[in-house]
């Protein structure tokens, strides 16, 4: 994309879960819609589509962001990790995914991919030192089933590893 002025249709190249991807996109498209509708990576969920619920959380160059408020044109040349990319090559779970199972940290599961992506980042940032800090730094992820107690316990467990 560089310094070229682009009209509605433009090419973007970025990596998704380590895989180089090149697409022709409309500049209006969000990263979330491209992941779900174009790349069939439907683990990333659409909740509010306005950056308030965290269901669409992914990592962009290693940092957690909401993909619904990320125009896909801004991702050109960058690296995206989704929930499909956090496990091992043979389907091993990320330690936080296992901790979610251990602590029953979900009910319907719709918010869970976003919770896990936010939780992995929360631990990596060093913002999971105690329950109060976990709650503060996970405040961008809503769970309407109210599994917050289990989510905090799961992050606490994974952070100890």
């Amino acid at each position: 994309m560089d310094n070229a002025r682009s009209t509605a249709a433009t090419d973007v190249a970025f990596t998704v879960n380590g895989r180089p991807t090149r697409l022709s996109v409309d500049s209006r498209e969000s990263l979330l819609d491209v992941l779900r509708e174009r790349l069939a990576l439907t683990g990333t969920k659409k909740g509010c589509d306005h950056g308030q619920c965290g269901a669409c959380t992914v990592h962009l160059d290693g940092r957690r962001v909401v993909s619904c408020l990320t125009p896909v044109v801004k991702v050109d040349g960058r690296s995206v990790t989704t929930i499909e990319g956090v496990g091992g090559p043979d389907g091993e779970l990320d330690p936080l995914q296992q901790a979610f199972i251990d602590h029953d940290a979900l009910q319907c599961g719709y918010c869970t991919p976003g919770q896990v992506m936010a939780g992995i980042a929360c631990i990596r940032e060093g913002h999971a030192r105690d329950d109060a800090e976990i709650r503060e730094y996970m405040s961008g992820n809503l769970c309407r089933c109210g599994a917050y107690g289990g989510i905090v316990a799961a992050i606490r467990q994974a952070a100890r590893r």
Partner: protein
Amino acid sequence: MRSFSYTAPRTVDQAVEALVDGGPGSKVIAGGTNLYDLMKLRIESPQSVVDISRIPELHRIRTTGSEISFGAGARMADVADHPVIRRDYQALSESLWRAASQQLRNMATVGGNLLQRTRCSYFRGGRRIPL
């Protein structure tokens, strides 16, 4: 959302040029958390969007002696978590980490934060509500 053209300049000079070229229908985008959201709601409909998030000099955070300076493009999370700011400017750090969520603070810039449009739809709605 209305269609728009998108440019991602690498220098301030290129950005200014792109804004002049785009005329009054052009808008600056950095984190995108405010403008892109308002574009989805059709409150903002720029014809041209100039992305200043790829201009390195706007992101810089400098702390020297008793002075601190950071670019308008510094992200809220980076300013809040900067070790010197955390230690010596606690009110500034706290005012940032208590706002929004970490996902949004990783995207939003301190300059964009000051330039936000009022979020309340009653205040910003141009149309009169029929009574």
